[in-house]
């Protein structure tokens, strides 16, 4: 098998990579949804009128795959409202009116972490979820038999255009990352840690090599990877870092790996040292419509509008506002939407930046097939989906699709390829559920 999987060259547009992140003042209000992670929404732990401080728990994890939610400003719970989530569902959100003091909850204390169980408990308490975008509760990843973990892989690839918040983390939070690596390695007995970074981030690679040299409890390697999208895809990164293949439908742990994003790692380190849970997020604010693009450290729940105002406002009316990068990011209907735990970037794209060509007929050029990192045949999948041919979709292994969007990006006819892949996966899933119910 090839050393590197296929991928595409996307424009980098890392305009904010060389500017330090700026911490913004407490916004007047924050809106904090109970569902900022994969899994069940957290259960409300406050009511209207309650006084909260930075780090006060306002949502209690509901079940194994869920996460605690904490107040990100000090002030009063103003109201509890329904918040529309990007998957179309709604979840309660706590609106806190800030008193401007940002006073910290006195009950917070650094956790005592000595072994695997205490580490998992601490992570569960911290409210930390995958901060690269997926939002998978982090404690679940470590709640496995340590003997199964051969590698801890730190994802610093940051392959999406514009986004630089992970780069800024790697440049400035090496101490937190080293502390987290040492603690995790000690508690789980992990011998090998690999940090994967795209080679367009030379300074981050240098900073991480310096950090790696300071860690003594385990072997930490920094791997420079080609700047080819989607380098940061979990299965892509694991393969490029270790040569191991995660089978379709399986998790990294099935290949002996635990993968966590570098900002997640730094947040773990900070929590283990101080006891401050996940309450703020470094967010890349960029896009052609933003007056002064920069990385902003904002309390979770800050409205996108307040973020834009902090960055000098908008130069022009954006056509699209995104959570995340332009390849896999999610559009939001308006700027009232809050910064979530897993928001790594907020982009305001102008009409010119977000312009997509007209969709025309497939000319069978094969660009989708030849650029798919996993060797799928998106055009054939589209045809199979259009005729709802479940057998053919299974044959074409559509479930292996990671939805990176390379196929749609390169299609000269701008066919909705990755979009049809997503629909196909959903179609197969529903069909399986139906068949299971029949029996």
């Amino acid at each position, binding site marked *: 098998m090839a050393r590197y999987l296929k991928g595409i060259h996307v424009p980098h547009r890392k305009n904010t990579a060389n500017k330090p992140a700026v911490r913004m003042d407490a916004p007047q209000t924050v809106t904090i949804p109970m569902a900022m992670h994969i899994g069940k929404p957290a259960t409300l732990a406050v009511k209207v009128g309650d006084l909260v401080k930075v780090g006060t728990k306002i949502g209690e994890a509901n079940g194994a795959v869920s996460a605690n939610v904490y107040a990100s400003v000090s002030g009063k719970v103003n109201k509890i409202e329904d918040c529309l989530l990007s998957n179309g569902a709604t979840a309660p959100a706590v609106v806190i009116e800030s008193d401007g003091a940002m006073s910290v909850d006195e009950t917070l204390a650094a956790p005592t972490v000595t072994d695997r169980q205490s580490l998992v408990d601490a992570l569960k308490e911290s409210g930390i979820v995958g901060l690269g975008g997926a939002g998978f509760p982090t404690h679940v990843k470590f709640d496995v038999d340590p003997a199964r973990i051969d590698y801890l892989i730190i994802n610093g690839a940051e392959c999406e255009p514009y986004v630089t918040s992970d780069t800024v983390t790697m440049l400035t939070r090496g101490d937190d990352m080293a502390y987290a690596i040492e603690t995790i390695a000690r508690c789980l007995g992990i011998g090998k840690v690999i940090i994967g970074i795209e080679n367009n981030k030379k300074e981050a690679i240098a900073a991480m090599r310096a950090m790696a040299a300071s860690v003594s409890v385990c072997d930490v390697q920094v791997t420079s990877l080609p700047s080819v999208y989607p380098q940061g895809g979990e*299965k892509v990164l694991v393969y490029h870092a270790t040569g191991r*293949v995660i089978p379709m439908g399986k998790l990294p742990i099935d290949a002996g790996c635990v993968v966590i994003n570098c900002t997640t790692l730094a947040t773990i380190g900070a929590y283990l040292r101080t006891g401050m849970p996940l309450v703020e997020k470094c967010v890349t604010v960029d896009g052609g419509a933003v007056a002064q693009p920069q990385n902003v450290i904002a309390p979770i729940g800050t409205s996108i509008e307040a973020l834009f105002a902090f960055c000098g406002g908008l130069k022009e009316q954006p*056509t699209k506002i995104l959570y995340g990068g332009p390849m896999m990011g999610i559009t939001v209907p308006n700027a009232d939407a809050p910064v979530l735990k897993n928001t790594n970037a907020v982009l305001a794209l102008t009409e010119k930046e977000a312009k997509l060509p007209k969709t025309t007929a*497939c000319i069978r050029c094969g660009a989708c097939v030849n650029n798919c990192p996993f060797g799928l045949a998106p055009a054939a999948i589209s045809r199979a989906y259009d005729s709802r041919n479940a057998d053919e979709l299974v044959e074409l292994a559509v479930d292996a699709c990671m939805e990176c969007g390379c196929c*749609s990006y390169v299609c000269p*006819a701008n066919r909705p390829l990755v979009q049809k892949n997503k629909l196909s996966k959903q179609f197969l899933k529903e069909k399986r559920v139906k068949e299971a119910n029949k029996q």
Partner: protein
Amino acid sequence: MSSLTKLMISPHIHCGRSTGGIMRDVLIALLPATLAGTLIFGLRALLVVLVCVAACVLFELLFNLITKQAQTVGDLSAAVTGLLLALNLPVNIPIWQCVVGSLFAIVVVKCLFGGIGNNLVNPAITARVFMLVAFGSLAIPAFPVDAVASATPLAAEQMPSLMTLFLGNYGGAIGETSTLALLIGGIYLLVRRVITWHIPVVFIGTVFVFSFFMEGFDAVRALSMVMAGGLVIGAFFMATDYVTSPATPWGKVLFALGAGLFTCLIRYFGNYPEGVSFAILFMNILTPYIGRWTRRKVFGTGGDK
């Protein structure tokens, strides 16, 4: 600010390539061959080109109008078909045959099968073969109006020199004789990443090796067999048609190998002096199966990639 922005599923950016852009590149790549054909065969060659291109575009335009479908002539694929058809015809072809050939290529082969992307076989090649069979000797450059518009040297006893074959100053279809002009265009397509090396290299390589054996290990004769006739234009411009050739590298190799073998079988053992068009047409029909046999292994489904 609460005005609604666009809600759309990712990705939100695009590489900027388009069908029209690709077809424009193909047209540009065929300019040297068109120019060479005009220089070698005279202004009537240009007339044939203009008639075929205009007829193909017009027929597609009319078909879309009559059947009330979205207009597709803007993607330039009809113009490419017209130009390729013209370059595969002899300079003395009657103009009415050009029009009938264009009608066949665009309406019968392409539009009736669903338009661009849905044709089973390459429209220009199929039209050429149709004209060859339907109009018999008329389409084969058999009655010279002047010295240079003679039959393809593949039918002749004495081959022209390698230099003559390379430059193109000998008998044959308008656009097929100048290997130099075709190579310039072919390299342009490779540089612009419109095509990959697989089909031209394997197709031409197969014909060379086969001819090398058949010509008694005479490299000069084998090279003549490569440069004379429609092989170079076929390998770079006709066999690489996206719609009717496989998408994966291995599929392309298999396709080109088959086309090369059939070309030689027809040339050496068949009734026609030239076999490139038939060979490509044959492989066009096999393309869906080759595509199926050479699908890439999906990552994570066991075995290698």
